[in-house]
């Protein structure tokens, strides 16, 4: 098996945001990687820091945010240390992003085709006219019916699903090597969600780009991703191949997350939930972040942060339960 090339390697990335109430450790030592042509999911609850992780890679961090440690190597360069000018050359061209709510992420006063084409005007120096024509082509690729008409329309004339397609067109027109999708279906109807997920999958295959999918929806993960990182309170709990996550989840948090979406037919138990709430990231718990809600918590979990333990070729877990297994 030839090993695919690494596209993005994030190591121990920390994003701390200073607020009046204290320093929020939004991303706290996150390590992950994305290979060429791979789909990677980052899964977690609201407030787990998964969106901040994605925004950090684009350097869309709040003014008060600072990277206190770590690196994010992309094509030989550290994204966390690039200047704003260098970062601008990467945005839209090498890394682009699809956002959550297609209703609010399109400029209401600019024609769809011009908004999409603007990427090429900026990066390739195309004329507005030429860029507009290319935008029509890309709109056709994202399967928008009569793309010529849609390109000349304004966002308020399109449905939510169409707008999300337009945003995807905007993200891929610059032919990026990494596409970050931040909860791309949350704001859409269920029937449209499936279409958009299919589209993202198709786009990824066709253009051979890598996909980083930020979501709270394990169903989407099962559909799209090759590998998954489960995050909780700004830290990674477990990384695994997509089958391993569902077949052999190791971390108690992953198990709890799965039980919150599955219905156990044998026992007849209803949908499970996780006791308690996500801890404050201003003053996170010592040791393992999950110990306050973990059914299997041990004394050591309260004191020390668990190290990474490999359990298979592709699966690793940050949990004291598996630490002794490695020692043996």
């Amino acid at each position, binding site marked *: 098996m030839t090993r695919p090339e690494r596209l993005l390697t994030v190591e121990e990335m920390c994003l701390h945001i200073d607020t009046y109430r204290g320093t929020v450790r939004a991303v706290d030592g996150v390590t992950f990687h994305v290979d060429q042509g791979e789909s990677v999911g980052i899964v977690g609850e609201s407030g787990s820091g998964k969106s901040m992780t994605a925004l950090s890679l*684009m350097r*869309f961090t709040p003014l008060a945010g600072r990277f206190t440690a770590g690196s994010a190597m992309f094509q030989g360069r550290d994204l966390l240390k690039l200047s704003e000018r260098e970062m*601008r*050359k*990467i*945005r*839209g*061209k090498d890394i*682009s*992003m699809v*956002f959550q*709510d297609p209703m*609010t*992420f*399109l*400029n*209401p*006063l*600019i024609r769809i085709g011009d*908004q999409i084409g*603007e*990427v090429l005007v*900026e*990066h390739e120096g195309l004329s507005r006219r030429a860029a507009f024509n290319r935008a029509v082509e890309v709109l056709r690729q994202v399967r928008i019916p009569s793309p010529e*008409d849609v390109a*000349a*329309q*304004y966002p*308020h*004339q399109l449905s939510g699903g169409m707008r999300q397609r337009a*945003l995807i067109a*905007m*993200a891929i027109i*610059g032919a990026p090597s990494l596409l970050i999708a931040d909860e791309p279906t949350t704001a859409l109807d269920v029937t449209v969600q499936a279409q958009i997920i299919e589209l993202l999958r198709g786009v990824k295959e066709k253009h051979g780009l890598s996909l980083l999918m930020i979501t709270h929806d394990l169903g989407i993960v099962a559909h799209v991703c090759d590998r998954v990182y489960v995050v909780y309170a700004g830290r990674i709990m477990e990384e695994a191949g997509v089958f391993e996550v569902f077949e052999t989840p190791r971390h108690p948090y992953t198990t709890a997350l799965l039980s919150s979406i599955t219905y156990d037919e044998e026992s007849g138990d209803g949908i499970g939930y996780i006791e308690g709430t996500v801890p404050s990231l201003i003053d996170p718990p010592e040791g393992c972040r999950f110990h306050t809600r973990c059914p299997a918590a041990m004394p050591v979990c309260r004191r020390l942060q668990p190290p990474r333990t490999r359990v298979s070729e592709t699966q690793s877990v940050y949990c004291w339960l598996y630490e002794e297994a490695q020692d043996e």
Partner: protein
Amino acid sequence: MSGSFVSRLSYILRRLAQVAPMILAVVTINFLLINLAPGDPATLMAGDFADLETIERLREEFGLNEPLHVQFSSYVWKVLNFDLGYSYQFRAPVLDIVLARLPNTLILLFFSFILSMILGILLAAVSARRPNRAFDNTASSIAMLGYCLPMFWLGMMLILIFSSTLRWFPTGGMYSLRAPSEGWPRMLDIGRHLVLPALAYAAYFLAMAYRLTRAKLIEILREDYIRTARMKGLSDWSVIFRHALRNALVPVIAVMGLDFGVMIGGAVVVETVFSWPGVGRLMYESILSRDYPLLLGIFVIVSFGIILVNLIADLICAMIDPRIAYG
């Protein structure tokens, strides 16, 4: 394309249809307002030593003894025929007097308006890019001052400093006595006279355009679609000028249009302070001499101007924002 064109066209027609009732309302209100004011124009016109008979004859002559509704309907009819009446004071048709002065006011308005819009918006863009930093704080403080200073006081201070003391600009008027009567030298002479009144006039509107645009820009720069624009790799300036400003301008233009009435009020003050021979000073003079037909005529023309400016402002807004015509 065709869909939005049709909706825009129908919006323009709907908006134009509102103009006729507005004009009628303006004419009615103007007429009533003036008739509510105390004082008898016939007495004034006849002079201090006139006898009752002369006064009565004047009343007869100008229709002042007719019942109110008769005066009103004949007035509306005349206005519709571009007859704004005859000025007691100037002994000339009102329309001719006002039209002779109108260009002077328009020059003043135009330069001040362009100055305040362009400069205000540019300064607002620089401020909004980094709010609450040194530039923004300085510009905002100065704008606050420009917003608060009374126009007449600012005008007098400008005269005191730049005319009386430094002698850079004339103290008032529109032409020098020995000015060349045509061509570029004449324009230059008017320009020299224009600087101080335009500055005094623009200060308030510059401050207002700046504050409005700045506030709106800062608000819009937090919108989601700004992040989309930055995602494309655009620079801060491209984001502000191509994406944010367009959205910010719609409310700014609408408010500036509404404020055109205030600008006319400002014209009265500035033209009086700088003895600028425009409609504003004409209004002031007509009030002092209780020249009802003249005052009414100025009101009507100014009101038409305000209606026209707001119509244009609305159409510009609809051109920038397709949703206005859509709704």
